[in-house]
């Protein structure tokens, strides 16, 4: 306890950085949601709740919500299943495991723009040859294409968390179960799954909330196209804020979106925490 104050100082750089890059701009931009600012002029007028009312009349936002949900749910499910599977595989010791780990983690170091660029190239030159049509170029497959890019570039962090979670489960449990005659699937079902609870809480919540906010990959891979088929909420907000000269409206949508994300994040964490078992 004596050291608690000492530890606090380690947080200071992060807090300062967070305050100046996130907290301060956020608070100082809040009022924009209640104005008709076009994003460039020096003056703006307060329009009270007009922006929020417009949100409920805007048919385009429905499409953006659909696309966002489709991507977020698909990505979260695939990411967690795949990363848990890979974490179990990589937890074993076999030749080349180090190289494999590196292969899965390295894409995390690349930016979203670079990932989208590389995959855009693969899609145009290779996938379109194999499948007869590129994934990103048609509305029915564009979300699948973006999910593949997102998985490639982001799966490493969940593998890491699941691997840490797996290594925390005492080997005795598995040995005891094996002696009792439990097969591999039963051991996974009754030992691994429940005891990985904390990892699920972290991974699923983080993946889902970050997937709902997804912007970089989609923006650089398709820009929301073709014909709005990959226009997610984040791109919808960006377009209003910067391209359509409706900064007030964009900010209002962003505000509502943020509140929904916060409620969702807290709700999910609560739900999963309540399901966790004590070791």
């Amino acid at each position, binding site marked *: 306890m004596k050291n608690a104050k000492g530890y606090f100082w380690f947080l200071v750089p992060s807090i300062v950085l967070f305050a100046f890059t996130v907290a301060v701009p956020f608070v100082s931009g809040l009022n924009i949601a209640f104005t008709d600012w076009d994003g*460039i*002029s020096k003056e703006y007028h307060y329009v009270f709740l007009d922006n929020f009312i417009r949100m409920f009349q805007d048919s385009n936002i429905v499409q953006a919500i659909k696309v966002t949900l489709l991507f977020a749910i698909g990505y979260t499910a695939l990411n967690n299943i795949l990363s848990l599977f890979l974490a179990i595989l990589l937890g074993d010791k076999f030749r080349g495991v180090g190289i494999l780990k590196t292969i899965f983690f390295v894409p995390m170091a690349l930016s979203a723009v670079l990932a989208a660029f590389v995959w855009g190239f693969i*899609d*145009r030159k290779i996938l379109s040859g194999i499948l007869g049509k590129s994934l990103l*170029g048609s509305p029915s497959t564009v979300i699948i294409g973006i999910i593949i890019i997102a998985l490639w570039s982001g799966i490493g962090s969940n593998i890491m968390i699941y691997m840490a979670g797996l290594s925390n489960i005492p080997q005795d449990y598995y040995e005891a179960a094996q002696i009792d005659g439990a097969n591999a699937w039963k051991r996974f079902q009754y030992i691994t799954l429940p005891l990985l609870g904390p990892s699920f809480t972290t991974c699923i919540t983080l993946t889902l909330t970050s997937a709902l906010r997804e912007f970089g990959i989609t923006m650089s891979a398709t820009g929301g196209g*073709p*014909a709005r088929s990959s226009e997610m909420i984040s791109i919808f907000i960006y377009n209003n804020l910067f391209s359509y000269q409706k900064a007030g409206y964009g900010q209002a949508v962003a505000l509502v979106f943020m509140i929904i994300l916060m409620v969702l994040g807290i709700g999910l964490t609560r739900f999963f925490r309540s399901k966790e078992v004590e070791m």
Partner: protein
Amino acid sequence: MKKTLLCAMVTVSLAAAMMTGCGSSGGEAGSEAGQVTLQFMNHTGEDRTIKYEDELIAEFEAANPDIKIEVQRMSMDDYTQTIQTKFASDDAPDVFVIEQSNLELYAKNDYLLDLSDTDIVNHYDGNMLAYDGKMYGAPLGVNAYVVTYNKSIFDKVGVEIPETLDEFYAACDAIQAAGYTPLAAGYQDSWVLMADTQAEYVTSIMKDDLDALKKLESREVRFADSADWRAVFERFGRRLAYTQGDQFGTDWNTACTMLANAEAAMVISGDWTANNVADMGEEVELGAFVLPVSNNADDTVVVYPGAGQSYAVSAASTKQEAAIKFVDFLTTKEAGEKYVSEGIGICVIKDVEAPEGATTLGDVVNMISSGKARALSAEADFNFKEEYRAAFQNVVSQFVLDGGTDVDKVLADLDSEFDRIAGN
């Protein structure tokens, strides 16, 4: 132990790099009294144009040792947003490039320096970028929408440059029958789709009605009620059958590569296509012609705006004198002649003449000199305003994805989207 040492070394070298980074930018302001550094921002993309621009800048710096130019280039897609963010944060570059479509917004908000009282005015016969009677931008080249074609394919198949719509379709059929793709369409980059439709509506509609787009935005004219707009989409839809398919899985560079490699015979876009293809390395002979929009050969004329992309000076710049000097240098007659003779484009500076000898754009330049051209007033803007533009692009994308046959639907969809935006 070894690892700790390595870590320490990496940390130290990173920190050192950061410090030298700060040092060099911090030292700049104070170094060498009288030395001025101008920030110059633009969205020049083609290698040949970049080379042209760099050579001019080097010449300018040699002639003015006290002025240094720092160029910042970005893609067209990022440019407008970046420059607007810079305006809003009081960080505008000293010299930058603007288009007609943004002139009013920037001029009204006092972001642009009035150049009316400078010598730059004398470089023009009146075709400068002006708002409210004041000159805010100094143009160099103008863009025209053209069909760029691969000469070897045209020769092998034996087709002539089409001057009427029927000749154009006949040429496409012949090229397709010979096993080539007649048209390469790289709609994955959204501006490519826009340029492709502009090649239609600029030549057929805006030639006679400069305010055609504004009338649609104000809903004075509806797409569905206009025979001209219906015709635009009928033609555009019909020629989709001549493209390679998977238009949204093909980007601009891929389309240009297809043209360069003689897989595809034509790309419908602007005069910049030839430059872009030339940058792809291979020796390829290209030509350009104007897309026919009717069966009357007299309707096929080059339509170009009086003023194209222009150089502007920031009103907030603290180095305006040097900036004006730089813009003056970029728009002299010599600069214009270099621009034309290197085949970069069409120039609007006074007294600049096209050189003898065939460049890719030679045919188009000849059309202008022989009077088969229409120069629009400097206020011409071929683009819809931002949100309308996005809506237009999205609806037309859907039209392309649906095969380009349902013209009624695209017109109705455009009307409902424009209604929605105008109502807001």
